[in-house]
């Protein structure tokens, strides 16, 4: 009985490690072929580490693609969107969590509706709206929708956080004569800092990898974000696997490094959604 349980548990652990390989090996394979030439990738050594590292793939790829430019665009769009979301959502959440006004619960439900609206249903009118505001091929074309789309989820997370803050803190601040603004920025904002960090990671990653809207709203090569700029497989470089692997590896490294440093925070940030939607 004990023996059977033991071998069963080894088998189960085997499943974990096999899936680990399924999850990680494709990435190892990509990094490996980014350092090989086609002969090695296709014929002599398709699976393992390169026999001699061909760094020239990276040098060529760097000079052929405007990777730094895509990076810059992604950094700008993701950072500004994240900051915008945080600002608006924290302030809005405070009004529905604490302030007394007639439409308070209506406003909460109104923003909650946004959680159930997929991007697809707004994308056509949004594309026209962006055109009407002359925002096509600008940062604004992405930043403004990303902020608006991030609001429902972020506001509700902050709301959940704020209603659990004991009211005494604000009461004593009020007694001491602090204004509502001062109370908000010096007491409330510091308390919700953990939630702010979580939402910042969540929204930044979301904006960093957003594809659909960017694909529709951005066509100018100079304005493309990383997910768009990397879309070249079916293009002229599709036979140069090494160079392609090099571009994709370079594009992935920053995110993977950030993730390895902050893996716990990132996982928590991305799974915080279950608390709201469930």
């Amino acid at each position, binding site marked *: 009985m004990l023996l059977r349980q033991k071998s069963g548990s080894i088998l189960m652990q085997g499943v974990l490690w096999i899936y*680990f390989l399924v*999850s990680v090996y*494709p990435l190892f394979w990509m990094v490996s072929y980014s350092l090989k030439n086609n002969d090695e990738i296709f014929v002599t050594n398709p699976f393992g580490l390169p026999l001699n590292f061909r760094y020239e793939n990276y040098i060529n790829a760097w000079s052929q693609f405007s990777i730094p430019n895509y990076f810059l665009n992604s950094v700008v769009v993701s950072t500004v969107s994240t900051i915008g979301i945080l600002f608006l959502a924290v302030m809005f959440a405070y009004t529905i969590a604490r302030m007394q006004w007639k439409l308070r619960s209506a406003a909460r439900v109104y923003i909650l509706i946004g959680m159930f609206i997929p991007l697809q*249903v707004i*994308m*056509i*009118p949004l594309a026209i709206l962006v055109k009407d505001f002359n925002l096509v091929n600008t940062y604004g074309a992405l930043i403004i929708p990303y902020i608006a789309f991030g609001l*429902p989820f972020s506001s509700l997370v902050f709301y959940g956080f704020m209603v659990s803050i004991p009211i005494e803190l604000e009461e004593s601040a009020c007694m001491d004569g602090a204004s509502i603004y001062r109370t908000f920025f010096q007491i409330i904002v510091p308390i919700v800092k953990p939630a702010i960090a979580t939402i910042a990671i969540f929204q930044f990653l979301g904006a960093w990898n957003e594809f659909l809207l960017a694909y529709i709203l951005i066509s100018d090569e100079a304005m493309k974000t990383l997910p768009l700029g990397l879309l070249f497989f079916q293009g002229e470089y599709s036979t140069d696997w090494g160079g392609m692997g090099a571009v994709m590896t370079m594009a992935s490294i920053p995110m*993977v490094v950030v993730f390895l440093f902050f893996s716990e925070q990132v996982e928590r940030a991305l799974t915080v959604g*279950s608390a709201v939607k469930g």
Partner: protein
Amino acid sequence: MRKYYRNKWAIMLFALPALLLYTLIVIYPVLQSMYRSFFDWDGLGEGTFNGLDNYIRLFNDPLLMTSLKNGALFALVLVVFQLGLGTIMALVIADPRLRGRKVLKTGYFIPVVLSVTVVCQLWIAIYDPTNGLINKLFQVLGIPYQQNWLSSPTVSIIAIAFVNAWQYMGYQFSLLYAGVKSIPEQYMEAATIDGCTKWGAHRRITIPMMVETYKFCLIIAVTSGISAFVQMLIMTNGGPGTTNYTLTFMIYRYAFGEFEYGYACAVAVVLVAISLLVTAIINRVFRQEKVTH
């Protein structure tokens, strides 16, 4: 204190920017989509009202059936793979005596943070019929099976769905793992004392107690299946032919390829309706099966 919280200026200053932006960019376009779905409209002029014509045309459009079928298949792959395998993995890894948990969890999660473009292009290479990883692996292992993964009309939708399942496995796994972790250990102990085996206890206790987690995971998996798009766009451009069309692909093609904005809006409305319906059904089913403690 009451006066403090009734500061009208503060309320306006804090709430209005968010509400205005949200109304303009989210709510107004939704209403526009609904309204425009009753028009023959090319996105430029006023368009002409044509009642239910778009919807009638849609329900006779063979692409609708293709898209619904693909959405369902896509969702099925996600559910079986992520929820099925994910559950087993979450249960095994929750055992505190297991070594290497941190490494395993990190490895599962890395694909989640990659760009979807990178992932899709990597898998185009993996699926490559002559030089791809999978067919090469079959050769090396002496398995006489080769598949044209992305251009076979029957296999390609599964192959594409698998890429999505693979990338976001770590995400669903984390949700399931958090669900397993949230169950007090005494429950398991009590069950083992009563003579349950570990897996028996999981089946009777852990899994039924994770109703909320499953509900959420299922909603995510099914709705992302129904609205799938990016993977087919990058990997096969909806093909071979139109075999890999999904609802979002239809919206994209009709709106931005053929400038039939009114018709595309009707597809969008149907997409939302189906998503909401499915979400409501899942909520309903799981409410009935909720275990009372």
